[in-house]
């Protein structure tokens, strides 16, 4: 088991490096853009040329990537923070430390000053959503899969399909039109400050609902499928035929085995959730990580895009590791294979 975890962990770290290179390649593919975006649209071409020279942007992509990695790991000083450049990119942490993501040109502050508070706000949003998605989809998935083809099953399944067919921005529009515009019960934006007269908790309700609706629809169908499959197994028939009450058959025999497949799916929902929060945060003007990534991309804030994507990737890859290991613990067959 220990060997398996180390093997999976090592391959995921490799994935992380490769993926971060991909992000780097996309954002910094054209070197002249890098200098231009760092200085902004009003800089003179001569200034752009000087920066191009100083940053060594003429070097091949792989060389520039290693340099970026060196800055991130605290092995090299961030070239943009060099006072000689006159960019005024000042970081109280110094220009050489582990986790140096550079300087955000959009927020005019070190990336580390910008990113963590937003990540916290998003973690709150996604955490609450996740805490609701798991029990809700397990409950409805088991109820539906327990008796395949029953009225309850069909109702839940159709609702599941409808829920996955409504993208976050559309359910946002529907919910806002009903609860905010028509009823006036909830706030339509979630700036996370109570200055507008709405307490913070009330600002969380709609964004969380949007996330839960979309993701739970998907997980419910997964749990249902897995449950229905287990209910057709011979040992369930045996349990029923030996006179065990339906309740015990479901709770003691079926659910435990039906949970193996959805377990991975549920953890991979965290990846889905990260995607979902970008849209949801846009709908409700929620001051989070997803909206920051979008703003950074539209503005061309290279350091912030790279940092944010790397963090999102790390979270996604860590959950993948947990789900792989968990799956192996739950299902010994996978380890033998």
């Amino acid at each position: 088991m220990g060997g398996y975890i180390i093997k999976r962990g090592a391959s995921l770290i490799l994935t992380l490096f490769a993926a971060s290179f991909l992000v780097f390649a996309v954002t910094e593919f054209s070197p002249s853009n890098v200098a231009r975006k760092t200085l902004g649209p009003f800089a003179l071409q001569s200034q752009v040329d000087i920066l191009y020279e100083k940053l060594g942007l003429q070097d091949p992509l792989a060389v520039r990537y290693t340099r970026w990695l060196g800055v991130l790991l605290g092995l090299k000083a961030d070239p943009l923070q060099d006072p000689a450049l006159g960019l005024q990119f000042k970081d109280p942490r110094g220009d050489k430390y582990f986790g140096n993501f550079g300087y955000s040109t959009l927020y005019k502050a070190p990336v580390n000053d910008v990113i963590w508070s937003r990540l916290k706000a998003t973690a709150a949003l996604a955490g609450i959503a996740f805490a609701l998605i798991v029990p809700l989809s397990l409950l409805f998935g088991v109820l539906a899969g327990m008796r395949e083809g029953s009225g309850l099953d069909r109702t839940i399944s159709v609702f599941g399909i409808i829920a996955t067919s409504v993208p976050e921005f559309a359910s946002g529009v529907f919910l806002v039109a009903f609860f905010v515009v028509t009823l006036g019960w909830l706030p339509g934006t979630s700036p996370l400050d109570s200055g507008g007269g709405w307490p913070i908790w009330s600002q969380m309700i709609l964004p969380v609902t949007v996330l839960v609706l979309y993701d739970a629809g998907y997980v419910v169908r997964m749990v249902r499928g897995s449950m229905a499959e287990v209910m057709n197994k011979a040992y369930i028939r045996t349990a029923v035929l030996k006179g065990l009450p339906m309740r015990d058959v479901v709770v003691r025999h079926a659910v435990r085995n039906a949970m193996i497949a959805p377990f991975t799916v549920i953890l991979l929902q965290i990846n889905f959730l990260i995607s979902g929060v970008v849209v949801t945060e846009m709908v409700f003007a929620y001051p989070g990580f997803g909206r920051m990534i979008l703003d950074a991309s539209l503005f061309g804030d290279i350091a912030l895009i790279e940092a944010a994507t790397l963090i999102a990737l790390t979270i996604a890859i860590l959950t993948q590791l947990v789900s792989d290991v968990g799956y192996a613990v739950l299902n010994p067959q996978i380890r033998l294979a």
Partner: protein
Amino acid sequence: MSATIDNAAAAPLTAPVDKAPPSLLRRLPQSRVAMVGLGLIIFWVALATLAPLLPLDPPNKQDLMALADPRPSARHWLGTDFKGRDILSRLIWGARTVLSVAPLAALAAYLVGCPLGLAAGYYGGKVDTIISRISDIILSFPIIILYVILIANIGPSALNIVLAVVLTAAPGIARIVRGLTLEQRHLDYIAAAQLRRESALYIMFIELLPNCRGPLITDFCLRVGYTIITIGILGFLGLGLPPPDPDWGTMVKEGTAMISVRPHMSLFPSIAIVSLILGFNLLADGVRELSLRD
């Protein structure tokens, strides 16, 4: 090896595809879910096809008189948007874009993903390792973030959206096709084809692929639905097809700015998007159920 030859001799040397029950298409009416889905899709395809013949305002024509009261009226059935453009007309013309870009993008992703998955599953070994590793890397991204940084860098256009969909969806398709290929690779009809000295390409595309079609048809429908969501999201995030031509996601985005006073501006485009996605998802579900029945 001798066992394989015996089996091959005993069984007819044809792929199971030949004795399959009537095609999925012919059995489709058996599934009510699939028919409802198909109905929704046909509804939009018909509107999109007939758009030039319908008595509609041009989608970009501004009716300044309607700006005073943009709500639905006899003149503008679904009202007008913030620039006085007819929403019904923009929805129908916008359907043309989404109904051509989304299936095309999904198809392109299949054209890339299928050969990769077939090769990974059929050859195994190093080929499999390389293809699977690259797929894993792309699949580990939170997908929307990948779209956002891609489109923000290469610019929003129909072609770039197709490219982004191919890059993000092809690895998933490759993974599914690889799995299906692994299930089939050791079956007799493949051994028979190998014995006949068919080329690897023939075996992969003529023998293997048609036998994987059930799950792939389902996946294709789901993917078209998901691509419609993606195009909608990109539009909503301000990375949609360039204005002024109508794009459903962009319409929702523009409408939400006025949702508190004019909710119809964002509601109708949202309903349009949902109905089309629902169509593809219902069709996928129906097809999946039908293919599980045999």
